């Protein structure tokens, strides 16, 4: 009533004004391209396909589960075929439409082969908004080491589980076909 509330408000703002010069936490913004906030490990953006050694040998076996589970249906998978027309356990086409993908992470969750994961890369831009935003297999593939770098905790867990599974399958099926054991585990 006497204007005291107004003055108190002004005191708050002027305190914040001087805090930006004196206090360390005064400014809460970060000057982005030069400085960056630390990335959270679970941060998810667009999916990537991981491979162990060679980029051609993706872990993906083209089982189409992620494509079916994907809520906005942004994944297109076509199985590769060998010379006789027999389907192989790898994708011929693996497209993700980044205009449609909503980063929900359900593909990662449902993949039984540890093949698709959500990446941390978020500075993505394209000059064309139609075709260039449909990311092909080649652009999506990343080495497993990349994943180990961005998500060390998860990677450790997955590595342990995969190692355990591998020994289990090796024990169960002695004469395992080489390419199957390599990819299916």
């Amino acid at each position: 009533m006497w204007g005291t509330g107004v003055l108190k408000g002004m005191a708050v703002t002027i305190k914040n004004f001087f805090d930006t010069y004196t206090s360390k936490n005064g400014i809460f913004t970060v000057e982005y391209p030069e400085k960056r906030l630390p990335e959270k490990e679970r941060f998810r953006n667009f999916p990537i396909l991981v491979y162990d050694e060679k980029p051609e040998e993706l872990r993906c076996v083209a089982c189409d589960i992620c494509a079916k589970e994907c809520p906005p249906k942004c994944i297109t998978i076509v199985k590769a075929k060998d010379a006789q027309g027999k389907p192989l356990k790898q994708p011929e086409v693996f497209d993700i439409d980044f205009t449609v993908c909503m980063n929900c992470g359900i593909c990662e969750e449902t993949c039984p082969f540890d093949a698709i994961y959500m990446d941390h890369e978020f500075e993505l831009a394209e000059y064309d908004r139609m075709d260039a935003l449909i990311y092909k297999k080649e652009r999506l593939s990343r080495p497993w080491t990349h994943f180990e770098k961005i998500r060390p905790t998860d990677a450790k867990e997955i590595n342990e589980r995969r190692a355990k599974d591998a020994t289990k399958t090796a024990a169960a099926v002695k004469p395992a076909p080489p390419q199957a054991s390599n990819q299916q585990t």
Partner: protein
Amino acid sequence: MIQLEEVKAELEKSLGVQTELSGSGLLVPKSRLLDVFKFLKENAKYQMDYISNLCAVDYLKQSQIEIVYHLYSMRNKTGPIGIKVRTDRQDCIVPSATPLFRGAEFQEREAFDLYGVKFEGHTDLRRILMWDGFEGFPMRKDYVHEDEDRYVEHP
């Protein structure tokens, strides 16, 4: 918690309305819907003065549309109980609850907009989410999308 059987018996006794249990709600004949609402709202025992939710469900196989109301009593803090009413898909008219519950206004408009349920007695029954010139009722199960390809199941 109010038991639906109890409400059912009470309705039968006081109003002479034959209702049946259906799922989580009480199926009320269309003609007596407003009476039931009025009874539930004004009866000292129930005092269902608050309409929490209203929505339509399209049962294509039975060729019926069901309207589900969830009533709640602010005074007694009981509920919600589901009241359901069924109407024919073609001749889709249901008495409006707006004279009793102002809160049904937008929800009825939504049901009209998406399901084509005409609420008799609603003063301002216009489309609310779709634009005015839109034809058809998009939430009905037999509605054909303009761009069907976007909703195709993955092969």
